[in-house]
Structures are given as C-alpha cells and as structure tokens.
C-alpha cells in the first residue's frame, strides 16, 4: 500500500465518480427553502416535512395513493386529431406535442383509470401537469367524456383531478369548445345520479377552472393550490395593484365560499373513502339494534323542567 493507492486513487475515483451520483438526492422546498432528502420527500407524498408545502405529485403516484392497494386499470383513449389548426408559433405544435410525449411517455395531458377506493368502484380522470402544463385540448376533452361515460357504465362515482393552466392555445377555438363539452360530460353523470368529486390541485386555472372543475358536487382542494380564473400576472397588469397575500390559494377559496374543504395529501384517501361511503351507502352498514322503549317521561323531559320554564 502506498500513498498513491491509499490517498490519490480514492481521491481521483471520487472526483471521477462524482458525475455518476444522482443529482436529485436532495430537493429544495420552493416554499421554505429547506433541503429534503428525496426518499424522505417521496415517503411524505412530496409534502415538505418542514413547512407542509405540497409539491406537485406525478399522476402515477397520485393514482397509487388513492386507489386501494395502489391498483388500477388504465383506459385507452381514442386517438385525437392532432393539430387541427396546423398551429405554429416559434415551434410547431406537433413538435411540442412530440416533445411532451417523449418526456412523459403519455399521449396527452389526461389519464383515465378505474379501480376501487374503500372497496367502492371509482373512475378517476387525472391531469398530467408535466404534459404541456396540463392544458386542455381535444384529447383532454375526450378523456373527460370517456371518464364520465365509463363512470356511468360502471355506476360509479367520478373523481376528476385537474392540474392545468387552462385551455391549450395551440388548438385555438377547439380548446375553448372543450369547456361546454366537458360540462356536458359531467352533467350526464349527474343526471345518472352518480357523485362527481373534484380534487383541485396546483394549479387549476383558466378554461379548466371555468368549466367542469368548478362544478363538482363536492369540491376538495389540496393545501396551497393556486385556483382561479385569470392569471395573477394578468390581474396585476390590469388593476395595477399588488395582489393580497394568499390570493387564489386553496385556503383563500375556502374562505370565500368557493370550495368545500382543503385536505392535506395524507388525509385525502380517507376523506374520499368517507365521502363515497356516505353518498353511496346511505343505509347503516350493520343492522341496528333497537334501544329499549323510552318511558313517556324521558321522551317529553322531566316534569320539573317544564315547570321551571314558566318563571
């Protein structure tokens, strides 16, 4: 053993190996700035253990979290007409689509799956924010129509989980038309008497918030999620004023009566199980044991109390 093998070689090896070490071992919380070990972050469902900030959760993780045993079946969606407008900005829309398809391994920004939640059959349509900002074009509209129809066929509740900046500009007016189209989808579900839940995640804005996303029978939001119609920058430029703190956050919407509840990720599944059970299983789950008959005195309250009421 020499100085060369004992000291220099490991040093060189360490220096060379450095590039092989995954650079995503640590994540920085965008809210509090604390470093979080990635395994701890994953175990905590991508919620910062220091400040409770909810980071975006990939769709696959989301479905795994909500469905019983993380098991679900994905539904194939029809192949949408790509690029109906032959849209081109600085890049061709078809190239942008291909890019997103390559990086995400998905065909578009929505995933439709069926499975069980608390043993109840449920259909989920979840947006993939990584796919062009979760924007809604024809394919996403297709996904919502398919999800609603599937829920009707299965006689199951539908949970839609938007994570979207809004309509997909590159599909022009056809993306705007997905607003009425998606509303029809959830109205069909409602007419079939099936529950429609919306789980609003960060962000839910623009044409997505102004259509199916705001029409849930029960509206749940994740803490801190940005939910609103107009973008904060557009509002600031229009009114030339600073926006109040917490503007368009889930808690702000709760305060203003726009949603039913803000639920931390760790309690989402239990909340959904409880709600689905309450709506889908109105009868008691076990036979009720009748109580012994109450005496008339107990039913009407003690006489003394009635007497005292007169003073």
């Amino acid at each position: 053993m020499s100085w060369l093998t004992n000291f220099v070689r490991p040093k060189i090896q360490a220096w060379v190996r450095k590039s092989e070490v995954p650079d995503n071992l640590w994540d920085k919380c965008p809210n509090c700035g604390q470093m979080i070990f990635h395994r701890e972050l994953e175990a905590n469902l991508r919620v910062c253990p220091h400040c409770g900030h909810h980071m975006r959760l990939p769709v696959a993780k989301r479905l795994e979290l909500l469905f019983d045993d993380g098991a679900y079946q994905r539904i194939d969606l029809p192949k949408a007409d790509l690029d109906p407008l032959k849209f081109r900005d600085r890049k061709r829309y078809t190239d942008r689509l291909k890019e997103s398809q390559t990086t995400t391994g998905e065909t578009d920004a929505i995933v439709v799956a069926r499975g069980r939640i608390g043993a109840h059959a449920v259909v989920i349509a979840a947006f993939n924010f990584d796919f062009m900002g979760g924007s809604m074009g024809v394919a996403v509209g297709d996904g919502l129509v398919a999800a609603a129809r599937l829920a009707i066929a299965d006689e199951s509740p539908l949970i839609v989980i938007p994570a979207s900046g809004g309509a997909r500009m590159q599909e022009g007016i056809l993306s705007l038309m997905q607003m009425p189209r998606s509303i029809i989808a959830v109205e069909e579900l409602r007419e079939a008497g099936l529950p429609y839940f919306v789980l609003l995640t960060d962000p839910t804005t623009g044409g997505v918030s102004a259509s199916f996303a705001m029409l849930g029978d029960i509206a749940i939001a994740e803490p801190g999620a940005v939910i609103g119609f107009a973008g904060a920058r557009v509002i600031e430029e229009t009114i030339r004023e600073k926006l109040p703190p917490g503007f368009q956050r889930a808690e702000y919407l709760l305060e203003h009566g726009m949603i039913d509840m803000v639920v931390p990720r760790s309690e989402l599944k239990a909340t959904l199980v409880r709600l689905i059970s309450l709506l889908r299983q109105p009868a008691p789950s076990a036979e009720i044991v009748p109580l012994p008959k109450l005496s008339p005195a107990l039913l009407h309250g003690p006489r003394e109390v009635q007497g005292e009421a007169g003073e």
Partner: protein
Amino acid sequence: MPTFLDFEKPIAELEGKIEELRHLATSGDINIAEEVSRLQAKVDRLLRQTYAKLTPWQKTLVARHPERPHLKDYIQELIDDFTPLAGDRLYADDAAIIGGIGRFRGWSAMIVGQEKGSDTETRVRHNFGMAKPEGYRKAQRLMHLADRYKLPVVSLVDTPGAYPGIGAEERGQAEAIARCIATCLKIEVPLVSVIIGEGGSGGAIALAAANTVLMLEHAVYSVISPEGCASILWRSAEHAQDAAEALKLTAADLLKLKVIDGIVPEPLGGAHRDRAAAIDAVGDAVEGALAQLRNGSDDYKAHRRAKFLAMGSQMPEIR
C-alpha cells in the same frame, strides 16, 4: 370625426378629398360633381378590395372598431318593448352584461349580451364589456327565467373577455362562467348566439353554448386574444399579428372548423360604415335561425349536447 384604422388610410385620404370637393361644389361646378362621383367609385372599389382580403389581425381591429354597432344599438333597432332586467339577486348588477325581455319580430324573447360602451363615460360604466361573476350570474338568472316562460334566448356576444380582477376572483369568476355555460346547455328553449364583435374566450362561450352560433363576417372569436397568445407563445405582444394568423379566429375559419353555423355578411367596408344595414342583417339571420330551430326537433337541450359533444374525437361505445 370617424375613426379610421391604419389599413384604411388610403380610403380615408380619398374620402377627405371628396369632402373638400363637396365644399367647393356649392358653386355648382359640374366638373367637380363628376370628380366626386369618380372618386366615390374609387373609394368603393378600394373598400371592396381591402375588406375582401382582410388579414386575421385586421379583422381583429375591425371587430374592435369603436364605431361598430354594440349590443345597445342592436336592442334599440331590433327589439320592441325592450324591458331590461337587472341584478343577480346575490351581489350586484353588472352593467357589462345587459339583458331583458322584449319583442323580436313580434315574438317575445330574452335578449342578453355584453355591452362595451361607445364613449369614455359609457365604456367605464360597462367596464369595456368585461363582465364579472355577477354579470354571468345575471345571465344565468335570465336564461332560467326564459326557460320557465318558454321564451327563446338570443345572446349577442361582444367582449374582450371576462374581467380579471381581485373582486371578480373572490366572488368566483371561474364558477360563474362554468355555471353560465352549464345553464346555456341546460335550458329547454331555443338559444341563438351571434358573435357581433369580439368573442373573447371564456367570457364569450359563457353566453354562446347555443343551438345556433352565428358570426358577423368581420367578427373574431378565439380562446385567447392575439396579444395574450403572442406574449405567452412568442414572448412578445408584438407578434400579435402572427398569433391572430395562427389562432384561426375569423368567421370563415371557424365555419370550416364547424364551430359556428353561419356567417352574417357585413355591409361594404364593415359594420361600422353602415350600422343600420349590419343590424338588420343580424336581425334577419337570427329570425331565420329561430324559425329553423322551431321547425326542427323540439328537444333543444339534446340538440345542443350532441352538437358540442361532437367537437372532439368520435367516442367509442363504453361497455
């Protein structure tokens, strides 16, 4: 003093000359009268040429022309006994959306739409046609009222978009628009919409999920304004012309895409050059559309649903 758009400059110059000559003509000079009619023919030719091939961006400017007839002008000319109805019964009355009952060509109907205003004072009062949640909730209320009394609804759309503001967000702009679209789709009476100027995004579709959607020849209808689209996708609002081109926001393009059902031709040189003729043309088109709907199936709701569901891929049967 009429407003001329940039590309109308040569026309403006010719018309200025005609004006000058007319002042001279008081002396009864025949040569001047001839010259005037010669110039007038030239103006007409130029107008026809210019307006036959307006670019999408030029159409956007025409659609926003300050002298273009607005909702109030249509109501004044087309609706007898118009009785405006106000308020959403929840918070306020929004002057950006005007609605009420009146007689359209003899028939009672509910009229609703956005009003942009025509001078500084009225523009401010009507908030430039940008509605807040209370506006969309008023529209919902009026559509439900029409539904209850079996009155057809005519909506005239002219808005840059829904208002982006703190109060609007607090009171649920997104929910109000969503519910307004849902109401358009839900009512059991005929609903005819005409995009008379600017059809700006969610603020427009809120009133335009209709059985028949018509568009004036030089109106525009799109998911985002060309400026907004350019600033996001080109990272500079200066590319608004390119964005207008790419968005396919003209009546001809939307008819091809089957998003609208018909185009109402405008008078030579645009609706602002002959407001009465433009308003009449819209009136005739709406009357025709209502008559056609009355002659078809009376399930207007199913008709609307089938129509908007078809604006996407063919959906396979789900087992």
